[in-house]
């Protein structure tokens, strides 16, 4: 306790004395326990994942069956969304926009980092809670408020924002530009601003906890890779979200106070010029992507970290190249800040500047390849246990390779001029970011579920979930590469208007069908998740995966404060698997006299 005391020299949460009874409110609602906050993030994220997934099913319905009429949809959703049994164009754009925003920010940022950073950081570094549990709680409630506001934007008369998740002006800056640019956009931007605050509160806490609150012996090079990844994720967020915030503040002024930071020479419907002058929409794109590119790594890095951990545990082998893994995380984090304009090659970006961005972008392939190499070599000749979590981790590696390769195509500005804003880009980022990070998240849930709820998930359902999802993911997104190469642009309501894209009618229908099947499979997972909380097989062993990390030294259902007694001391790195003939040696085991070095 002594080390605790001086780190908390003036904070009020003294975790040593036994907890007097907690009320329902303090335990489940305004909880300051990082494990409960993690679950709150997870459940909220899951709600959004279902809603966002449902939206994608709806707009896939339009893309796959542009000529069919689903009158029953009209009864459910109402006239604004569906007319004559067809999704209206406004609704279509509202759906793609909200789907993108929600999945990128609410599911794969808040739902992923929020869940696992909260859950794993204190447990794996050996701390009783986050540095500031109160701020941690605030972080969730800001996210919750953002969620409510985003959700309410779905119900306003003019519909939710419909200018794409990147919110480019003028659609986002001019109320008169489209129906969604009115109240829907106001709510969108408020929700996003609250979300930024939430992620800053969370990120600062994660960084400081990792730096300051490690238990005795837990030096930085003894941290599990999960923690390293979450650390860099938090750093990326803390340094890049503020830039988005600034961009949004300027956008708010453009919308409401007659400025023209992002606007210039605009006519709406040919009715006279607006007074705006001298601004540039490109400025917003720069500011947006200065966050936007780090953001994709904010989404990916936690998945990478968890996958590294899960692969090593379930191969019963040390992770290959621990220091190289940290190094590549570090260089990815740095490069993430230097490449944003590769999203802007066709905006009239200065070609010389563009060529530097090409170079820097292609450099990311190096640390990415190092990571892939190390994952594969970790698997190599391992005693692999194919648990569902492990399956998803391996699936992640596969997806990361497939999607990363197309990134290298896009990173070349010469190719990107052809491929930009086509389905090729959709395929690229869904595979490498969307589905891959989802896989990381699933892997994490399957792996840490026993610690979260003291129950096991059903394995059979887990395998079904895995196989349908991975097959479905490739069946959905692989064909999109061909559509994109053929020039099929993204964000179009109806392709059947173009002769040349009619050839893809069957393919689009196929993709939409698979999408529905995959979505249904996720419901199976949800069933598994909630059913197992109550009826799942009880965890009987403290350490069901025979893992080395600290979270498995806590009681089955750890209370607030995590360890009933002293926090254990750490004597080794977390990857001593199969060393000196021993299957695994937990971090808390002192190093023996005879022990070999590696």
């Amino acid at each position: 306790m002594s080390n605790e005391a001086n780190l908390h020299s003036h904070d009020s949460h003294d975790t040593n004395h036994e907890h007097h009874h907690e009320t329902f409110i303090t335990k489940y609602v305004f909880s300051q326990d990082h494990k409960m906050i993690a679950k709150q993030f997870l459940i909220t994220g899951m709600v959004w994942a279902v809603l966002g997934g449902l939206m994608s099913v709806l707009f896939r319905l339009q893309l796959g069956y542009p000529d069919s009429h689903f009158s029953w949809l009209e009864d459910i959703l109402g006239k604004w969304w569906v007319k004559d049994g067809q999704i209206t164009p406004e609704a279509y754009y509202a759906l793609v926009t909200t789907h993108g925003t929600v999945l990128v920010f609410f599911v794969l940022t808040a739902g992923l980092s929020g869940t696992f950073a909260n859950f794993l950081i204190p447990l794996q570094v050996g701390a009783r809670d986050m540095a500031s549990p109160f701020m941690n709680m605030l972080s969730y409630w800001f996210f919750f408020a953002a969620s409510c506001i985003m959700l309410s934007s779905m119900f306003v008369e003019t519909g939710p924002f419909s200018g794409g998740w990147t919110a480019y002006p003028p659609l986002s800056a001019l109320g008169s530009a489209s129906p969604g640019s009115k109240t829907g956009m106001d709510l969108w931007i408020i929700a996003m601003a609250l979300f930024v605050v939430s992620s800053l509160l969370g990120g600062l806490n994660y960084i400081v906890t990792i730096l300051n609150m490690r238990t005795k012996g837990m030096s930085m090079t003894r941290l599990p890779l999960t923690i390293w990844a979450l650390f860099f994720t938090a750093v990326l967020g803390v340094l890049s979200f503020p830039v988005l915030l600034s961009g949004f503040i300027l956008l708010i002024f453009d919308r409401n106070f007659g400025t023209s930071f992002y606007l210039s020479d605009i006519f709406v419907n040919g009715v006279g010029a607006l007074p705006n002058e001298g601004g540039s929409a490109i400025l917003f794109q720069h500011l947006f992507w200065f966050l936007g590119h780090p953001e994709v790594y904010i989404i990916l890095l936690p998945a990478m970290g968890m996958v590294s951990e899960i692969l090593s545990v379930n191969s019963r082998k040390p992770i290959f190249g621990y220091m190289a893994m940290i190094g590549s995380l570090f260089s990815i984090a740095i490069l993430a800040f230097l490449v944003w304009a590769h999203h802007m090659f066709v905006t009239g970006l200065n070609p010389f500047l563009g060529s530097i961005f090409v170079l820097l972008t292609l450099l990311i392939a190096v640390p990415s390849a190092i990571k892939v190499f190390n994952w594969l070599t970790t698997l190599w000749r391992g005693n692999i246990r194919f648990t569902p979590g492990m399956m998803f981790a391996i699936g992640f590696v596969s997806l990361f390779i497939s999607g990363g390769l197309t990134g290298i195509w896009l990173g070349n500005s010469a190719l990107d001029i052809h491929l930009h804003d086509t389905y090729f880009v959709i395929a690229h980022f869904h595979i490498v970011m969307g589905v891959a990070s989802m896989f990381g998240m699933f892997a994490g849930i399957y792996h840490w579920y026993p610690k979260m709820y003291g129950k096991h998930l059903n394995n059979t359902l887990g395998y079904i979930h895995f196989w349908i999802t991975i097959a479905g993911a490739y069946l959905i997104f692989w064909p999109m590469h061909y559509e994109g190469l053929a020039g099929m642009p993204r964000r179009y309501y109806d392709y059947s208007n173009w002769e040349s894209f009619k050839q893809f009618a069957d393919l689009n229908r196929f993709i939409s069908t698979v999408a529905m099947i995959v979505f249904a499979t996720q419901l199976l997972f949800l069933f598994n998740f909630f059913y197992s909380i109550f009826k799942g097989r009880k965890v009987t062993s403290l350490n069901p995966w025979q893992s080395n990390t600290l979270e498995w030294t806590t009681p089955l259902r750890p209370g607030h404060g995590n360890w009933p007694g002293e926090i254990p001391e750490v004597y080794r790195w977390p990857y001593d698997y199969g060393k000196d003939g021993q299957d695994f040696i937990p971090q808390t085991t002192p190093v023996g006299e005879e022990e070999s070095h590696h």
Partner: protein
Amino acid sequence: MEHTAVAEHHEGGKKEVIRVTIILTVLTIIELALGFAMMGMENQRLRLAIKGAIVILMLSKAFYIVGYFMHLKHEVKNLIMTIVVPLFIFFWFIFSFLYDGNSFKNLKNTYDPYKKELSTTKAEKKEEAKEIKTDEKKKAVD
């Protein structure tokens, strides 16, 4: 505990504060002097050089505020590094934004004759056409 690092320094504390205050004041005065010197100066090269000098003075002021007032200079070296290193991102951030802004201007001037014309016509004429609403008559610039 954590006070020790501080305690060692506070002997010279007051003196240091006075010294830094004087330095900041002097730097500001030089900045202002340069600012006055720049007024009405025609030589664009020289203006640019002075602006560069002002930026350097600004950065050194920032150094004194962060280093001494915020006490960063007396913190553990690794803490200094975690704060200084990420700031290097600003180099690329600033360079590429400004570079692209400049390029954008050149593109507009080359391909948008209307913009070009606007930027070479004296204002009064344009003002009537655009009828900017200002309550007071603006003072003409000689």
